[in-house]
């Protein structure tokens, strides 16, 4: 861990000013950033604690949406009565992640911006383009059980580890940010990015920009949704494959489908073709399998993670069945519904 300056501003403009020096980082819950500092992966020169900015509210939006403050904790968000009622998919995804202790500290903004769990990214002695651009990718040809099967590049095969973000992708959330150039809104699908040849960039946030809130549109998927997470133990492990599904049903038919995959790519993975293929279809094994095919089109294993392709196919079909039947996966009863 390197020496750094520490400030704890109380206004957003002060925070933006404080973080501009090169190597400045916002500190929210610290559950990811501090770990990475201890491993000498992140070496910020300035830590700007943003917990006093008052961005921790959860507020109704005119028109029926909901605004989640960037500094609201994952725990408070999942347990908020409005989230639980109107966006149970989000609550479920959050509760599928980490541990109660971590969720109590972790914030929504931090969750969006958490970094990959790639072993090589965490280990300074190995090659990693994301940590040290140009050094190569240790995971390609290495231990890559947890790595991407979709959207990877020759530079990086890391995944984005968040559960919450998989639900936010399905819910068409909007990220509100503010920075030196003022405020802007980023549609969720454009927030995280694929690695390409610049894997050091996880997302489209500009340097010095602060996430202030996550807006959820006024849409109701509470009747037909699920978050199904498969991992190496029954709790407290990152997803090998996860699936968030939100359906609008009209009788036995699917009127609208949204599906996102976690644990398989550098960003929550959505495929418009797959969702369109389900629209107007009956909730049947055949239509689910077709959607799974389309979602996994082009999937490519790296050796240790080859199994993820078959596993994801099954997980997608199961999750669609859960959502269509209105029997979402419980995050406490570990039996898969």
């Amino acid at each position: 861990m390197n020496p750094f300056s520490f400030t704890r501003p109380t206004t957003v403009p002060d925070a933006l000013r404080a973080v501009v020096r090169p190597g400045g980082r916002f500190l929210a819950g610290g559950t990811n950033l501090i770990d990475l500092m201890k491993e000498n992966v992140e070496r910020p020169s300035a830590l700007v604690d943003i917990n006093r900015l008052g961005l921790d509210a959860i507020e109704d939006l005119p028109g029926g949406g909901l605004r989640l403050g960037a500094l609201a904790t994952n725990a408070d968000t999942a347990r908020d009565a409005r989230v639980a009622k109107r966006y149970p998919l989000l609550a479920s995804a959050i509760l599928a992640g980490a541990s109660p202790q971590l969720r109590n500290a972790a914030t929504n903004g931090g969750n969006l911006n958490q970094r990959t769990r790639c072993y090589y990214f965490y280990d300074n002695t190995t090659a990693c383009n994301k940590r040290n651009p140009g050094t190569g990718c240790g995971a390609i040809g290495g231990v890559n059980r947890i790595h991407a099967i979709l959207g990877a590049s020759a530079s990086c095969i890391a995944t984005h580890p968040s559960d919450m973000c998989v639900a936010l992708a399905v819910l068409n959330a909007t990220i509100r940010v503010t920075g030196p150039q003022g405020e802007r809104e980023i549609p969720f699908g454009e927030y995280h990015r694929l690695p390409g040849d610049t894997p050091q960039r996880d997302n489209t946030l500009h340097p010095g920009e602060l996430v202030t809130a996550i807006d959820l549109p006024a849409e109701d998927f509470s009747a037909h949704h699920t978050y199904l997470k498969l991992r190496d133990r029954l709790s407290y492990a990152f997803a090998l494959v996860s699936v968030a599904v939100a359906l609008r049903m009209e009788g036995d038919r699917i009127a609208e489908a949204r599906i996102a995959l976690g644990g398989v790519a550098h960003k929550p993975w959505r495929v418009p073709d797959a969702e369109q293929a389900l629209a107007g279809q009956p909730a049947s094994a055949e239509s689910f399998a077709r959607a799974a095919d389309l979602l996994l089109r082009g999937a490519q294993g790296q050796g240790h993670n080859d199994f993820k392709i078959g596993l994801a196919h099954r997980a997608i079909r199961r999750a669609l069945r859960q959502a269509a039947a209105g029997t979402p996966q419980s995050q406490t009863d570990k039996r898969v519904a």
Partner: protein
Amino acid sequence: MNVMQNVGIGSAINRVDGLQKVTGQARYAAEHPVPGLVYGVIVSGAVPKGRILALDEAEARAVPGVIEILTHKNRPHIAWFDHSHKDMVAPPGSPFKALYDDRIHFSGQPIALVLAESFEVARHAASLVRASYEVEPHNTDFHKAQAERFMPSKKRDSFQPPKNRGDAGAAYEAAPVKVSADFHLATEHHNPMEMHASTVIWEGDGGITVFDKTQGPQNVRDYLAGVFNMSAKNIRVMNPYVGGAFGSGLRPQYQVYLAVMAARMLRRSVRVVMTRQQMFTHGHRPEALQSVQLGAERDGRLTAIRNSATTSTSRYENNMENVVNWGMMNYACENAAGEYAIAPVDTATSSDMRAPGAATGMTFFEMAVDEMAHAAGIDPLEFRIRNYSEIDQMNGTPFTSKALREAYAEGAAAFGWSRRSQAPRSMKEGRELVGWGVATGMWDAMFSKTSASARLTANGHLEVASAASDIGTGTYTVMAQAAADTLGLPVEQITVRLGDSTLPTAPVEGGSWMAASVGAAVQLACRSVAEKLLKAAEKMENSPLGSASLDEVRFAGGRISLRDDPARGVAIAEIMRAAGMDAIEVQETASGGISGMISQMRKSRNTHSAIFAEVRVDEELGVIRVTRIVNAVAAGRIINPKTARSQILGGVVMGIGMAMHEESMADHRYGRFMNHNYAEYHVPVNADIGDIQVIFVDEPDPEVTPLGVKGVGEIGIVGTAAAVANAIFHATGKRVRSLPITIDKVFDANPLP
């Protein structure tokens, strides 16, 4: 007062150190406050093999607060000969000596120790030390290492070569029912909660006091004396509390060596704590390959056992385990052949981890036995009973006791085994396949010469002491109970001291011998106090005890009274007052004695267990839930059913981890374990653990050890992974012969119909 009835041997009292632990008063090795402490942070090497070409320390040395950087270039003199670096538990070979020279033996090897006035400065400066290497070809792939498989002529002390009987090859060929199975176990790291740490206090007179995370303070003392050519009298090693170890603290680890080296160089107090990542750079359970072939008659009688295994070691030491013996000992079978060897990889030396050898070898053997029972079409519990042996089949000796039959019966009854339907895939609930599996566990019941002292003061307070360790197992409590039992004192009047090398001699805490050994030593010491008291009492005028012998009196409630006439007695305080004694102080040593040695040769001494597991499998997705475990244990006399149960529970949880989760994954290009943190090295969490029922079956055994105690620290893990794996087969009809059984090995990867 009849407190003694409730606290002595056999009673389920709470841990006597519980309050200290839950209130944070118990201090661990890195928590002892020392004025003027220097903080050392270890710099770990990046390559698995080769030479350090250069170390660039300039930037690190420029950081204000850095005192010194220890490397192979400037380290103080240490002993030259390997012999001086051996500890009591060291396997044959040349022990690793940190900062000895420019050679790199394994990835993560310590290459420098940065010493600074604060931890933060040391840690920062450590990140600025840069090394360049000449890298040499290496191999960490255990499968490739099979080409170098060998058995060294010099064996580890604890190694017992398998003894063959009959003609296993011919019997196997002739057997009407055969199974042959090859198994693999991934490398596991101990991962105790507390990381290895040492606080070395420079006493000013050349002496040092070392708070160390260890399972044997006297082992560390003697090791340090050898390495630094110091008089053992000038070294005091203390480990009053240990946050788990599972075997990783049997041998002194490199942080204590580095901390003492630094303290001697700077003539100051020094603390060195490993990081979690560095916890993956020393001992580990060896990776293993095992091949089992069994032959049987159609009625399920075993006729042939062939059991062969290889475990991993380093290139500089030859670690060996007893892997193949267990199955050969346990089953009635006229023809059995065992074969074992090791294969070197370029990692640190593997080491003992909870039930070393048995956790691996018995597990795989019991998985093979399950395959055989299935092949013979016999219920796997019935199969084991048909091949039950009353004697140790490999050594041809009787056991001091073996209540395994009772363990099978009581475990099966508690589990409801009779309701099992035999065919795989035949039990289902909802979407999940249900599987029930059984396995046998076996471990040694060892005893190790141990001394203890006892000091009774006139106010009725007793202190018992021994250089034993309590790594969370309950040694404090067991010592208190052995003392309470003998002298009839309430636990509140007893102080237990352990974890201090200056106390009476005790072995390292391992092998599950601690309770039996130190318990016996404390009992002996307390009996000696009792004798002295009785003698004094009988010298009193009009002694109510007359000339009764020790067997004719009873110690209870602070009094000695006649067994036949409890009204006739005298208070201990009164006896001491009358005799003018301030204190009675004794030290005794429990050794097996001559009769013990003869018994050792003539009889086998083992613990046994029967483990029953229930799993529920969502086959389509490969999600396995271990919903129930019953572990019925035959371990002689149980000193404290509560702490003993905790040991079995912990063993079972670790066994579930072995079956399903634990795996240190190496990148063979880097020769390095990659998932070196708690997020990615998985041990079971609460959600992975269902109902665990522990049963101790009655097994009176006055012969096995002086107290009739066999020890329970390790038996809980042995066989548990097999019971889980066998249950997974019963649920799914699929044999997974490589542990851990992760999701990818189970889910049905066939394309959809």
